[in-house]
């Protein structure tokens, strides 16, 4: 106690209390727990950190640093952290922060693209991004090589790497109305879509990459033919006018159709670098591919008006070639002008495909000897009118055994195939000779003879009229009488039959009686049989009468 308290006695003394337990160690649990929590948060955050990659895009359109998400199969796997211009100013570099465990997504052929609302001819995609904002989608590749730098796609790929199916490359003269996503049809069923297209290096053709979805990809074989399915195919043939189109969609946005010719017994497997031809139409696609062409020259001694390069060369109705060129030639030595017509014949079209199996490798006219033999047997070329309306001509090959003999000069290149005048010319010649013959016919004498014959026929008819007619009339009257009598007899017979039928009807009295009688008869027969049986077993009954029943 300190002396000099102001009023110590008025201040109450505090109560004595037991010593409080030391709380010092306990309170240090608080920072320990805080440290543990903080450490755990730090560690878990650090562990959650995934890889950081850079993606190059052409523009940052629709991308927002720190906001734009990265999705794989619509699962959020990360976000775009920063966006900066590329060093060479050709595009932008988006730094993508991906979640934990996404390392295996980031391989050599992984593709990134921005999902934005897109409306193309046949497809509308990414509409949800109108509300949710654009996002970056990725498609995981198949490579195992890890990568940290990617080039983003400008267009979303038409199919993802893990989509089952098959990718094919087609070569086309032009792109037509195709676009990415245009449908691919097989038997008018959509089985795939156009994935990409690019001009070939030399600019002469377009390479179209299509994707056939499983399970339809097994209908594609090395023999499959592809054609543009856009537009309408109008054909006029023996069946009338036919309008063909794949579907209304393909009519509007274009498309590709394919089919596999049935004769291919064993479709060859498709190699990955196989290039298919994309034909302009189905007809063209199914034309046999003409890899070999033999040229011949035909010289006609008539007008070739109506014959055009590209006109068909036909062998008994089958197109086997076409007219390549029509020239005029002046031969100064003989002072003659001739019109050599150059034709191309595709010998493969002569190859038999009907027998099945692979077409025989035999080829018409490889050395020309075979054709020479055919010429010996009368093979000739002839100009024929394809259409009387338009006057179009075509070249026909056929056998004319009666034609004057000719030889195929194999030394000449191209060899000259002998020709024969066209049927129209033939007809003309025949008509002239016919007219000459007709002139020599004695027409007046023939007319006089004819008149005389007619007169004798007339007199004969008159005699028949006077002599034969009355007798025939009497005979006819008698016949009519006989016939009426026969009719009466028939009526009687019919009546008799009717009565018989009525009496035999199932509900007639006679029928019932007959049935009763038959039943009675059956009963009598039965008792007779019983009697006979009894007598057989007991012959003495005949003498003694029926004995009492004995067992």
């Amino acid at each position, binding site marked *: *106690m*300190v002396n000099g*308290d102001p009023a*110590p006695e008025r*201040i*109450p*003394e*505090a*109560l*004595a*209390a*037991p*010593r*409080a337990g*030391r*709380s*010092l160690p306990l*309170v*240090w649990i*608080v*920072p320990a*727990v*805080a*440290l543990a*929590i*903080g450490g755990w*948060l*730090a560690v878990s*955050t650090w562990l959650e950190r995934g890889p950081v990659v850079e993606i190059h895009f052409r523009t940052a359109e629709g991308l927002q640093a*720190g*906001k734009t*998400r990265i999705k794989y199969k619509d699962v*959020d796997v990360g976000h775009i952290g920063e966006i900066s211009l590329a060093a060479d100013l050709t595009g932008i570099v988006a730094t993508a922060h991906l979640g934990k465990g996404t390392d295996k997504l980031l391989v050599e052929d992984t593709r990134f693209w921005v999902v934005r609302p897109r409306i193309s001819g046949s497809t509308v995609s990414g509409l949800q991004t109108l*509300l*949710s*904002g654009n*996002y970056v989608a990725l498609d995981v590749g198949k490579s195992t090589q890890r990568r940290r730098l990617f080039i983003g796609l400008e267009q979303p790929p038409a199919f993802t790497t893990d989509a089952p199916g098959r990718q094919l490359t087609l070569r086309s003269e032009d792109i037509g109305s195709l676009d990415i996503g245009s449908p691919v049809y097989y038997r008018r069923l959509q089985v795939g879509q156009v994935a990409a297209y690019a001009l070939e290096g030399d600019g002469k053709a377009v390479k179209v990459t299509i994707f056939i979805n499983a399970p339809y990809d097994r209908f594609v074989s090395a023999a499959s033919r592809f054609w543009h399915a856009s537009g309408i195919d109008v054909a006029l043939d023996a069946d009338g006018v036919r309008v063909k189109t794949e579907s209304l969609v393909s009519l509007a946005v274009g498309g590709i159709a394919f089919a596999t010719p049935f004769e291919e017994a064993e479709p060859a497997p498709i190699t990955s670098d196989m290039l298919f031809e994309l034909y302009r139409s189905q007809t063209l696609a199914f034309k046999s591919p003409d890899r070999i062409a033999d040229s011949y020259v035909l010289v006609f001694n008539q007008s070739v008006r109506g014959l055009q390069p590209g006109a068909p060369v036909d062998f008994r109705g089958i197109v086997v070639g076409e007219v390549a060129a029509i020239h005029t030639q002046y031969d100064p030595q003989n002072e003659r002008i001739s019109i050599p017509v150059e034709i191309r014949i595709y010998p493969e079209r002569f190859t038999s495909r009907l027998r099945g199996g692979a077409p025989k490798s035999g080829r018409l006219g490889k050395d020309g000897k075979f054709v020479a033999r055919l010429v010996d047997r009368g093979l000739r070329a002839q100009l024929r009118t394809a259409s009387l309306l338009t006057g179009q001509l075509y070249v026909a090959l056929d056998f004319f055994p009666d034609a004057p003999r000719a030889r195929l000069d194999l030394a000449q290149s191209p060899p000259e195939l002998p020709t024969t005048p066209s049927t129209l010319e033939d007809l003309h010649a025949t008509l002239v000779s016919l007219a000459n013959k007709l002139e020599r016919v004695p027409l007046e004498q023939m007319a006089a003879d004819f008149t005389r014959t007619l007169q004798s026929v007339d007199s004969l008819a008159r005699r028949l009229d006077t002599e034969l007619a009355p007798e025939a009339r009497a005979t006819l009257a008698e016949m009519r009488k006989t016939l009426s009598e026969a009719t009466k007899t028939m009526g009687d017979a019919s009546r008799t039959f009717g009565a018989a039928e009525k009496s035999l009807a199932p509900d007639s009295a006679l029928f019932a009686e007959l049935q009763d009688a038959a039943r009675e008869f059956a009963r009598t027969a039965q008792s007779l049989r019983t009697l006979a049986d009894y007598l057989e077993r007991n012959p003495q009954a005949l003498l003694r009468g029926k004995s009492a029943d004995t067992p």
Partner: protein
Amino acid sequence: MSAAAAELGLLACGTCGLVSRAPAAPAAACPRCRTRLAFRKPASIAHCWAYLVAAMVLYVPANTLPIMYTSSLFGSSEDTIMSGVLFLWESGSWYLALIVFVASIVVPLVKLIALAALLVSVQLGWRSRRAERARLYRLIESIGRWSMLDIFVVALLVALVQLTALAAVRAGPAAPAFGAVVVLTMAAAQSFDPRLIWDGERRPRA
């Protein structure tokens, strides 16, 4: 003339305010309300340090981790306190940004630093600027709860914005950490005995 109550052997009850003389026993209790009495809060500095260290530790995740996940039709985002401030600043609401920045970042930081400074000064027995230090302590005590603003906002949003498909707000890991920081700094401020500032004042001030 002034003398410390402890030097006079007097105890003040923190609950009912009664002043009493210290008994001979090692511990004392208020004769009126039975509150345990001591000259200084027992182990004040140790308690204060413990809470302060815990608050410092949790201050880091509270500011670096996202405090709120927002997902809506228009995409989802996660926000840290600082990104929220920046967003407000960039969108033109600089006054709101200032409020959030002060309440959520400056105040807790000031509290942590100030408390640490007070503790160090008391432990080293500094004698200068006692009045300023006392004022600092009063300031810390009074602004302690302001920082709960953020937590209230997050708690309200999480509870209210649950429109399943349209929008949803979830609290991030920083929210509990931040709440813990606020609570711990308040506890630290509570456990600090400001009388320690004045201890060691041998001579009455002029």
